[in-house]
């Protein structure tokens, strides 16, 4: 094998997965002796992990041109064991635009999080092991989305679950970390078992494990066993995506894991679940043209987005709040993808991408707060913006993005989702989809509300005495956040370009199943559909920004001319001047921060029965969550049996 052959881009998918596992192996082989550098306890192992993730990102990035722009589908047989006798014998990797889209997301998130980890994990023990698990997790997720073989998907699911559980409980001293890990392990294990059962039942029917071949064989030959397998697989991937009713696990796991891992759990693991569901419904079973399947996905998506956003409003912990929000955003993705229109898929994938970016940013900001103050309790924090100005700005960018404030990326994708749902409602003349539009819009506002709560109770407001010595986080951590923040802004300002390069090829790939099958060497007679991405609305963020800038400039000139910035401020030496104290309606100047606990009383009061009910429902007992999983499985089986 010569060098030219090795640098052929067809090998890049396997390289990108391989470097990560190789990195994990090398780090593990290097032993666990901590380095002497207090700023980087893992020493060169951290650099190995960083290099591995960077290489992986590089390999995937160089695939953008052939796959995304030229529409090639890379099929890769391990050891060149191709099809024999019409059956796929070897283990395959198949990279179409959809896989590459998710892989790029994952690689980006993993790379940024690795940068962040170097400085973030300084206070922990056993950091070398952390990087082993980190690389394993990254490799697992990447392997899952690039795999062309359903059993390999299961293996990767197991690897990533295993690594994720271990990393969740990595900080064993953290309040509830072990508990969260155990709950995640139990329900995750049930999910994995469901996937395995589904895989094996498919194998029993069709005697193949290759995705493309299954996609070729299954449609039209559905029997009860296949339907059962579908239900099992669907529930299995649902546990990975943490959609309702598996959302409590996400909240526990995100809250307890180190922030760099929360980024992966929310930005990467949930995406792998969504990827699995898309592969399942659009490719393997091709059921998405059925109204009942659209209804199921849209319904669960809407429920997820609404239930989780209300749960988030009731949270007192920064990271738990973010965790519920990430499921809420996954709800958007699922609802959009479930519309089964090309605009819907494109919007959903766009939102999935944005979610990885802004939620990663937010988790990293939460991690920065945790790193400096040692807590993420909203009731204890306050006024950090004066000590951590950069983190505050970065957090605000993330918060604006997730709450859909123009011109950040969250708005662009949510706005596409509103249009997609409304268009679907008009096209299908079904008022139910209209309800989804309304729920999505209201959820967006509630999201904004809960981030207002966070910014008030963490970054603004009054600062407790004990945080007076808090410093800004190290540059390495700010760099990681800065990368994500830039991506948030760029993807928000150029929605047309982003959708054109990334999501529309992916959406086209979703619509064009026939090509996916034929690329692997099977015969398919599925016609190539005609895909358009027509939008009814108009939104030109660049023009808007231009006008806003002119307006701001004009105002600023007026303001500066009017000496707007000439303000009276307390100077360093006079510390007791009452002029610069806050006005307390006559009370003495005491610390009285309005915490996040019950900030939106006016809203919650009207919903108190709902909130009480939800609080009691999320009991924290692992048996209850397992019961939800079993009930969900049973319902899925019954539903599939009836409608398919």
């Amino acid at each position: 094998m010569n060098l030219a052959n090795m640098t052929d881009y067809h090998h890049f998918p396997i390289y990108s997965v391989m470097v990560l596992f190789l990195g994990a192996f090398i780090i593990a082989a290097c032993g666990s002796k901590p380095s002497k550098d207090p700023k980087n306890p893992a020493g060169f192992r951290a650099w190995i992990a960083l290099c591995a993730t960077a290489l992986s990102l590089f390999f995937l990035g160089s695939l953008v041109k052939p796959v995304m722009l030229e529409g090639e589908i890379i099929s890769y047989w391990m050891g060149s064991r191709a099809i024999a006798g019409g059956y796929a014998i070897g283990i395959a990797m198949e990279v179409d635009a959809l896989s590459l889209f998710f892989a790029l997301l994952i690689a980006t998130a993993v790379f940024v999080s690795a940068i962040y980890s170097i400085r973030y994990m300084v206070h922990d023990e056993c950091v070398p092991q952390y990087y082993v698990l980190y690389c394993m997790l990254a490799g697992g997720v990447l392997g899952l989305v690039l795999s062309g073989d359903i059993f390999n998907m299961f293996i990767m699911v197991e690897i990533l679950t295993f690594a994720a559980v271990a990393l969740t409980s990595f900080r064993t001293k953290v309040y509830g970390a072990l508990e969260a890990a155990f709950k995640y392990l139990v329900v995750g294990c049930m999910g994995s078992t469901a996937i395995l059962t589904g895989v094996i039942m498919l194998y029993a029917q069709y005697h193949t494990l290759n995705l493309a071949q299954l996609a070729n064989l299954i449609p039209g030959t559905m029997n009860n066993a296949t339907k059962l397998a579908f239900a099992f697989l669907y529930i299995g991937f649902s546990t990975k995506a943490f959609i309702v009713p598996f959302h409590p696990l996400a909240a526990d796991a995100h809250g307890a894991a180190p922030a760099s891992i929360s980024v992966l759990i929310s930005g990467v693991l949930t995406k792998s679940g969504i990827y699995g569901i898309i592969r399942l419904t659009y490719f393997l079973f091709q059921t998405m043209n059925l109204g009942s399947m659209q209804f199921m996905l849209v319904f669960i998506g809407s429920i997820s987005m609404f239930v989780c956003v209300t749960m988030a409003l009731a949270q007192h912990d920064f990271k738990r709040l973010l965790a519920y929000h990430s499921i809420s955003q996954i709800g958007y993705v699922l609802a959009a993808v479930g519309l089964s229109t090309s605009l819907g898929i494109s919007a959903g994938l766009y939102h999935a991408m944005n979610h990885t970016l802004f939620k990663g940013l937010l988790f990293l900001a939460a991690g920065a707060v945790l790193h400096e103050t040692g807590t993420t309790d909203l009731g204890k924090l306050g006024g950090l913006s004066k000590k951590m100005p950069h983190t505050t700005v970065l957090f605000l960018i993330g918060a604006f993005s997730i709450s859909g404030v123009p011109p950040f990326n969250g708005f662009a994708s949510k706005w596409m989702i509103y249009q997609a749902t409304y268009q679907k409602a008009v096209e299908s003349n079904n008022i139910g989809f209209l309800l989804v539009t309304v729920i999505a819009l209201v959820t967006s506002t509630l999201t904004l509300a809960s981030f207002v709560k966070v910014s008030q109770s963490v970054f603004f407001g009054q600062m407790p005495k004990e945080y007076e010595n808090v410093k800004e986080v190290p540059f390495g951590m700010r760099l990681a956040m800065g990368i994500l923040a830039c991506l948030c802004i760029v993807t928000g300002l150029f929605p047309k370009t982003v959708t054109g390069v990334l999501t529309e090829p992916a959406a086209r790939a979703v619509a064009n199943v026939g090509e996916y099958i034929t690329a692997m060497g099977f015969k398919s007679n599925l016609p190539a559909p005609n895909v358009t991405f027509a939008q009814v609305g108009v939104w030109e963020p660049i023009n808007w920004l231009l006008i806003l800038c002119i307006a701001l400039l004009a105002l600023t000139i007026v303001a500066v001319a009017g000496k707007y910035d000439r303000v009276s401020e307390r100077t360093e030496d006079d510390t007791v001047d009452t002029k610069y104290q806050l006005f307390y309606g006559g009370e003495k100047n005491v610390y009285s921060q309005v915490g996040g606990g019950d900030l939106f009383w006016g809203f919650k009061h009207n919903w108190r029965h709902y909130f009480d009910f939800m609080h009691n429902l999320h009991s924290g007992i692992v048996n209850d969550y397992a019961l939800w999983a079993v009930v969900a499985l049973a319902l899925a089986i019954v539903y599939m049996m009836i409608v398919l």
Partner: protein
Amino acid sequence: MIQFNYVCAFFLIVLGFYTIVTKYNLVKTVIGMSIMDYGVNLLIISIGYTPGGTAPIFTKGELTQASYFVDPIPQALTLTSIVIGACVTAMSMSLVMRLHESYGTLDTREIRRLRG
């Protein structure tokens, strides 16, 4: 007779679910997970099994058109699955130990700091 395998496999899976859902002891939960695993393993093996088939081992001269053997792929899958199951059990048992250290109990109803 082959149906009995399937019934048994699904019975084991359901039994595993039942154990996880109803037993409030962490160790029993882990046992439930293992039972669930065994059920799936049994299912895989049953699928690969052909009555009267031989072991899928290629030895020189034995391979003829008439001889047939059980499907080798499910057996390979079972191996993987068993390994994963063992890992999960080990992992969960170590978590149970640490949980018992920090909570002083094995009752799931008392291990619920994270809720709501």
